[in-house]
């Protein structure tokens, strides 16, 4: 008997809910949350801001530096920051971002694990009226207020300038390229090639997919085909480190890498590499927070913010 009454009561409640739901004009089938309320942009002081940060991983020094940049800048201005570690899992990151949206943070700073997998969350944030700033990688869809990334073209130019200065005009060099089509490959390559044009003789350009082993094999082939090269520009440190192994018999070749990874900087200190164009992850974090402050002051934020780079040079080339 009690069971009957109970089930009738539950059924009635469900029915009432469904009727109220439909009468209130919400969509029965929908992709966006029918209960989500959209917040409108209000001008806020940095000390009133709640910043939600989702990083792709925290077991890599590069991303730990990004976190440092974010938290230090935010603390100076008195903003509240909450940093989540995506542990390189797209699923964990999407849960994290959802929780941050629920927490009603004022702005999201995201360093996506994957640019396609983060798209739905960026759209959710858009629906909730929370501006999104991405670091290093962007989102394939949704509205992103600004992308903070290294100025790869400028980095390529720095590498070319260094080689011209060290090797002199018209020196023969080779170039190791990254994964074809990747934005880093295109931009680093364009920056280098444009500056080198007319000053350096690029005898060959080969792809080694940003991979150390591929860099080793490709550099060996290059050394066979062009034994007279004086320099080698590699579009990342991993391939450059492969090239270091391949060119051991010819240590005078000036190898320049890109990224400033721990291994890369180590190789520069050991003089195996001549230089590396170092990214500044801490600066990226700082720039992202500053962009958020600018947005909440009501100023326009540029959709692309270039983070500066630094050329780290081995002692003997200074």
């Amino acid at each position, binding site marked *: 008997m009690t069971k009957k009454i109970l089930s009738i009561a539950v059924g009635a409640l469900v029915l009432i809910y469904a009727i109220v*739901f439909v009468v209130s004009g919400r969509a029965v089938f929908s992709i966006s949350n029918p209960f989500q309320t959209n917040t409108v942009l209000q001008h806020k002081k940095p000390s009133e801001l709640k910043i939600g940060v989702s990083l792709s991983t925290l077991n890599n020094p590069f991303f730990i530096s990004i976190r440092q940049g974010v938290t230090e800048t935010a603390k100076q201005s008195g903003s509240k920051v909450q940093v989540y570690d995506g542990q390189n899992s797209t699923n964990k990151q999407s849960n994290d971002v959802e929780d941050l949206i629920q927490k009603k943070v004022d702005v999201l700073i995201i360093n996506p694990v994957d640019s396609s997998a983060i798209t739905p969350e960026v759209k959710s944030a858009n629906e909730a009226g929370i501006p999104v700033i991405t670091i290093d990688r962007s989102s394939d869809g949704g509205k992103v207020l600004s992308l903070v990334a290294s100025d790869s073209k400028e980095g390529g130019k720095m590498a070319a300038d260094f080689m011209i200065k060290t090797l002199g005009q018209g020196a023969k060099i080779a170039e190791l390229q990254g994964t074809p089509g990747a934005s880093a490959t295109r931009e680093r390559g364009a920056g280098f090639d444009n500056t080198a044009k007319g000053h350096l003789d690029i005898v060959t350009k080969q792809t080694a997919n940003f991979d150390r082993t591929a860099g080793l094999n490709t550099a060996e082939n290059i050394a066979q085909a062009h034994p007279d090269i004086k320099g080698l520009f590699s579009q990342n440190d991993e391939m450059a480190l492969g090239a270091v192994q391949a060119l051991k018999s010819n240590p005078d070749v000036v190898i320049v890498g890109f990224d400033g990874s721990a291994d890369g900087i180590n190789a520069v200190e050991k003089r195996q590499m001549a230089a590396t164009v170092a990214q500044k992850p801490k600066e990226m974090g700082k720039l992202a927070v500053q962009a958020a402050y600018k947005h909440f002051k009501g100023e326009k934020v540029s959709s692309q913010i270039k983070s500066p780079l630094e050329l780290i040079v081995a002692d003997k080339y200074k």
Partner: protein
Amino acid sequence: MTNTDREQKVVKEVKDKKVLQKLSGLGPVLALIVLALITTVMNPSFLDPNNLLNLLRQVSINGLIAFGMTFVILTGGIDLSVGAILALTSALSAMMITSGVPTLIAMLIGIIFGGLLGGLNGLLITKGGAAPFIASLATMTIFRGATYVFTDGNPITSKVMNDSFIFQFIGRGYFFGIPVPVIIMLISFLILYMLLHKMTFGRKTYALGGNEKAAFVSGIKVNLTKTWIYVISGIMSSAAGMILISRLSSAQPDAGTGFEMDAIAAVVLGGTSLAGGRGRIFGTLIGALIIGTLNNGMNLIGISSFYQQIVKGIVIIIAVLIDRRKKV
């Protein structure tokens, strides 16, 4: 002491034991309530209906896998390949959707394929006589490797996925304001609950886990039942995969890494014994909710993600210790 006194004492002891058993069955529910209370005190927005729905949606993927895992663990087995099955089947379905196969058909094929992969586990364990841990460990690496080969290590995404309403509806949609993954989880729960507690298949499952030889002697087709149980586990994993690809609008080659651990944790937190034969699928639902509440609650409170992992581990240890005491 007279005889009647002694009888009364025995009756009282039996009664006490029954009450205790009932209470210990409620342990996970109590733990969930306490957790929810603590989180609410620390951050009242936990109880916001939007957040509760958000939490349920986050739980749904682990919930689905853990429901299948409950059957496996009830027989005293384990299935480590659930995350890899999820990855392989979701990559397959995503590829089919990208090349123009209608969403629902592609997902159905993916789920059937998941059942076959689970069946392969079952055959290795029953016909091959391999220990479930080893068999599923091996298939885990095989399926994961196959996923990398199949996807070439890249995520699969396409414009079709971003445009198809049905595709997005499965993982991100709302039906009467309730997230679709939650509805899928609850329907699956009801079906598997009936299967486990109202049908002979469920009684066979318990019999297998309690004493396999006795089950065999009493005429239960041990191998067939076991194989079906791994098929269920495979189906649930690939169903979870369909929700995941929709939520991420892409199939990631490394999707589902570590999901087996969360699923096993949910089962154990729900009071199911790893030795088999004892446990309930309702407990697993609560266990999954406990893990979800922990994740969501700690995020809301603002506990650093490093500490979150430690807390999760401690909660599981407490659950296991309580479980051991119950046995004594």
